[in-house]
């Protein structure tokens, strides 16, 4: 019988990663990595898919399961390459997107900028209609005006229309009617409704979300259709699954309905990878540290599950500061992201200080050492000069780095400005980017009341393992795991994720006065939606449902999520819900005001199916001596205990067998990433060929 395979593909900003897994043996077969094709991402996916199958001697029809995570949605928003999009809104409110919340997010920065709206003013049009706070129609929808405005937008060449009407979260009828008119008049135009995408109170946040959804909808639909066409031609016959920001996977058909839910698709997959490695290495709490070409992300996974936030900000335009981006109301794995990656550009700023990123050289022209025309020094260039990267073995030797170009760029743009040698400047770049990442990760941990000393770091991303131990040292983390395949971890993570769909409906009511028949109807509607999304999925009959409610004391503006195991909240849960809310509130804030009624705002339902049962085979321990894997020695720069280059053994990751143990300084090379092990750090290779590193903490970082 021919082997059955599972394939996972992760399209990142710089690289597209692949993992092929033998479904029967439960083991990864091969990894692969190609440069992302920014123009046509599907092209790189198809090319890498074919290359990887050829390497494994397999064919597309043996692939039984394909899962996909992608930054295509985020990139389209950040690079403003989405569709020309129009907005239809209630008369009087065409500028909601441009006015925003009107808050300065850095009180001392007179010039803190905001991102331009995704839809320019001339494409934001108004239609006469009005619904009140109670959902009553005050002014009926002027359908003739709708037709006129759709005509204007069609003539202007829009390919998508976002619809966001005042109080549509209370009464979606007018939005639905507009969708019907658009579909009738111009079926080629994609439509997104605020009452479907983000049925929550607050016109700016809701409009921002639906605008982003419409903006990327044609692009995602085209991409997924194109990709599926190609895969079909290669012989792949099964559905394609996509990873959602919330950390579940869903069918491609369901995903393209609400593309904005894919914004953090890749990072969500990465968090699942970290969770998986935490479990296989016996660590209860892990901090995933994912450093790629453009950004670094950190995510705390406490007790095996990443946190989920109800909102994220896309396209933060000012040094990744909260408030400088576009709010998107969609459930998202809670992580922190900063502009620090291998491609981050180093410069001497106006204060005469070294600053790194958030600008990135990305894949093209890339770091100076790529020799593709990049002149500014990047983190990768610094790492090359410090000896961390082997110029002849970048991407397993498929790309040759040119250290002399790196030295020139570092010397010219940084070293001379700071009066430092290229080596000192390179160390400055490496150390500064580490500090920046540690600072962001520390904030993330503190916000979650997590002591860094109690977590293990899982390092991945193309650049993660080269920086992980230093970042851990700054944070006071004592254990670092560099999993095998660290450079393709998001692709591995997607294989471990469950199939899950988060759904929400808004219905504001006092807990004591809820119309439970209405609640039942809301939940029936959500279950229908989940069933449609999972239609045709093997095992769909065993879907598990979990309900949660956003509750608050009446009059407050923020809610606490209260989980209710099981399918549907009912009248008999009232006392239980009130008690759970009181307990949660007291745990969060230390006290709860007495005598205030409790209000429910949003009603959630999560539908979940167990994902593909991904597993790794554990190998027995072998010899402790790593020398069989030793492929050479080179001079590598370390700061401690004494600054300077020192001879350092280089090991081949694929030759390091379970049980191997050694101490830094050492370099371990795999195709997708290089692990830098400074002096004072001890390494053991476990049964899954993960590198388990322990740091001696000197008390400095506490």
């Amino acid at each position: 019988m021919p082997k059955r395979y599972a394939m996972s593909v992760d399209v990142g900003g710089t690289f597209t990663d692949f993992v092929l897994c033998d479904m029967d043996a439960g083991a990864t077969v091969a990894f692969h990595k190609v440069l992302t094709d920014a123009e046509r991402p599907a092209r790189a996916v198809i090319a890498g898919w074919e290359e990887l199958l050829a390497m494994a001697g397999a064919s597309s029809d043996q692939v039984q399961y394909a899962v996909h995570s992608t930054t295509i949605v985020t990139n389209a928003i950040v690079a403003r390459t989405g569709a020309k999009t129009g907005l239809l809104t209630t008369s009087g409110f065409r500028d909601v997107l441009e006015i925003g919340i009107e808050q300065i997010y850095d009180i001392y920065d007179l010039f803190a900028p905001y991102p331009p709206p995704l839809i320019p003013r001339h494409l934001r049009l108004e239609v006469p209609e009005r619904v009140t706070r109670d959902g009553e129609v005050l002014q009926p929808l002027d359908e003739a005006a709708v037709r006129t405005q759709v005509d204007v937008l069609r003539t202007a060449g829009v390919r998508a229309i976002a619809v966001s009407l005042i109080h549509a979260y209370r009464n979606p009828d007018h939005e639905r009617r507009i969708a019907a008119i658009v579909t009738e008049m111009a079926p080629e135009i994609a439509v997104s409704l605020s009452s479907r995408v983000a049925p929550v109170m607050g016109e700016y946040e809701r409009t921002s979300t639906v605008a982003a959804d419409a903006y990327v909808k044609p692009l995602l639909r085209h991409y997924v259709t194109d990709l599926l066409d190609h895969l079909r031609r290669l012989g792949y016959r099964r559905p394609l699954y996509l990873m959602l920001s919330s950390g579940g996977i869903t069918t491609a058909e369901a995903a393209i309905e609400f593309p904005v839910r894919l914004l953090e698709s890749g990072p969500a997959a990465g968090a699942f990878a970290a969770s998986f490695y935490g479990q296989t290495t016996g660590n209860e709490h892990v901090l995933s540290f994912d450093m790629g070409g453009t950004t670094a992300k950190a995510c705390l996974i406490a007790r095996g599950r990443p946190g989920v936030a109800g909102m994220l900000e896309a396209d933060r335009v000012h040094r990744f500061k909260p408030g400088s981006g576009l709010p998107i109301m969609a459930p998202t794995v809670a992580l922190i992201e900063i502009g620090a990656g291998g491609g981050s550009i180093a410069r001497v700023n106006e204060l005469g200080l070294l600053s790194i990123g958030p600008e990135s050289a990305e894949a093209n022209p890339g770091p100076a050492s790529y020799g593709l025309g990049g002149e500014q020094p990047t983190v990768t260039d610094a790492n090359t000069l410090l000896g961390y990267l082997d110029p002849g073995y970048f991407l397993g030797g498929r790309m040759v780095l040119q250290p002399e170009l790196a030295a020139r760029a570092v010397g010219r743009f940084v070293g001379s400005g700071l009066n430092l040698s290229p080596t000192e400047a390179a160390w400055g770049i490496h150390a500064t980017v580490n500090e920046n990442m540690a600072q962001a990760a520390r904030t993330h941990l503190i916000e979650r009341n997590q002591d860094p000393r109690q977590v293990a770091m899982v390092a991945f991303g193309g650049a993660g393992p080269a920086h992980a131990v230093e970042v851990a040292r700054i944070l006071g983390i004592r254990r670092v795991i560099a999993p095998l395949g660290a450079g393709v971890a998001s692709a591995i993570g997607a294989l471990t994720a469950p199939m899950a769909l988060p759904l929400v409906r808004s219905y504001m009511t006092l807990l004591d006065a809820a119309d439970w028949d209405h609640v039942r109807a809301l939940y029936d509607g959500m279950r229908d939606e989940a069933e449609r999304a999972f239609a045709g999925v093997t095992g769909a009959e065993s879907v598990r449902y979990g309900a949660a409610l956003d509750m608050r004391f009446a009059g407050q503006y923020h809610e606490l999520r209260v989980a209710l195991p099981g399918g549907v909240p009912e009248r008999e849960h009232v006392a239980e819900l009130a008690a759970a809310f009181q307990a949660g509130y007291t745990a969060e804030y230390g006290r709860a005001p007495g005598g205030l009624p409790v209000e429910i705002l949003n009603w959630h339902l999560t539908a979940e199916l167990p994902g593909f049962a991904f597993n790794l085979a554990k190998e027995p321990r072998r010899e402790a001596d790593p020398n069989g894997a030793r492929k050479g020695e080179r001079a590598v720069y370390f700061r401690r205990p004494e600054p300077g280059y020192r001879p350092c053994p280089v090991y081949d990751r694929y030759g390091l067998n379970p049980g191997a143990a050694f101490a830094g300084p050492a370099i371990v090379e795999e195709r997708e990433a290089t692990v830098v092990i400074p002096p004072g750090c001890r390494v053991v290779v476990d049964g899954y060929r993960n590198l388990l590193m322990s740091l001696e903490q000197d008390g400095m970082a506490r």
Partner: protein
Amino acid sequence: MNVQMTDAAGFDPISLGIIWSRLIGIADDMWTTVLRTAVSTIIGAAQDFGCEILDAEGSSVAHSNRSMPVFNLVMPTVTRAVLARHPITTMREGDVYITNDPWLCAGHLDDIATITPVFHQGRVVAFTVTIAHASSIGGSLTSRTVREIYEEGLRIPILKLVEEGRRNETAWSFIQENVRTPDMVLTDIEAQLTANDLGGRRLVALLQEYDLPDLTTVAATIQAFSERAMRDAIRAIPDGSYESEVVTDGLDHPVRLRCRITVAGDEIAVDYAGSDPQSPRGGINCTLTYTKAHTVYPLKCLFSPSVPANEGTFRPFSIQAPAGSILNCSVPAPVGSRTRTGWHIHPLLFTALEPVVPERVQAGNGLMRSVHVYGQERDGHFFNAHFFVGGGRGASQGRDGIGRNCFPSSARNVSVEVFEARAPVLVRTRSLRPDSAGSGAWRGAFGHQLEFSSLPGYDEPVSFFLDPDRLRFPPRGLAGGQDGPLTEIRVNGRQLTPEEIGSGQLTLAAPADRLAVDVPGGAGYGRPADRDPALAEADRAAALVSANDSG
């Protein structure tokens, strides 16, 4: 933090960096707690509040990045006033102090400060302080008509709101009986206490973790760092004396503000001599505490925007204003609308310093506004909601004015949907106001146009309480840039004169009645003839600048 702390006395730089960012993080947690547990639109939605950690001397150590700037700057004053009244040795664990005295606190009665001593190892090691704008403090609804502070509401002296964990019921009931929508006001004060408690607990945990007996060394170290950064920045600008003058609407007659800024070495002195005397009517007077805060805030923005602020940041500044002047008023001057004067300190200082730091200052600001509605819903309960809207900011050398903010406040606007949910009112328009930006090589940000009515079906008159600014004097251009427009207020299409606006109370009797408020945009920077034609064309294409407008 992009700074190096090489001379951190007693701390290695990494630990100090961690502790410093943790302190800011604790203040941020306090801020989030208020936001999440408050119930009024002005605190829970518009975010008119601030949180800070101070050392045992009452010097500021860290504040939230989102805190109302002026609140951060008056918290040391109010905390030291508490210490003067209640020596530190008399404080007990579980005490909470309260006051809204405008001369000690944030300049008008609406801003209530709660001050919580934090105990560690049996003694006070710090204070957690929150100041928030109460949704009501009683008194007149029309700040423009009052003659003395006694008409403006309840003046709360420094007293213990909570004593060793027991609520001072006398104090609570005094507040309860003297404010509108008392449940809303008291729940918001609870939110302040919750935030202070949470901040105190987190702070003690931090001290325990680092085995620190108190905050003294940490505070002194980071204050010294911020102070040095500010002194370095001041030393980099030329010594000299820089003057300016602005004229504001005032009430019955215009008000003149004057300043002289003296830069000497690493210190700056600001003297407001020559500014008009305090106003006998309408709360447009500033207490000296408030004036000082609105002086050091823009100076911090100009000279040291990126280093975290604390007491040290502000030591190089000295500020004086003549007693009895509108910038240093005395009891019983009314002060409810002190932003009408205080927010003009920013353009005053920016204009004075334009010759020195032309690339950092901004032209005149259209200024944010609040529209307040108060009354009774048909079911009998009282509504009390504030609608905030930003004005456009002025342009700067090399860039158009930045809209999308309420500067110099850090509040956010109030969502139309949230506002309507809290009052029987319809917001019929909130959009950018075309032709509302002063032109120039760089134009101001656009202002807004608003239109309100009562909610059809409500059938009662609805009163709107406005306190408009820039009815007579527009935002001023810089370096040849043009002024912004004036505020326009119309009822049923007819523009009201400043005299007709009178008290600021405008009542819509019938659902068909309309109230329109046009908020000005910011002023321009540089000559309009020097504007990039492509930028001018983009504004016309967006229908924000009329085709016949030269800008």
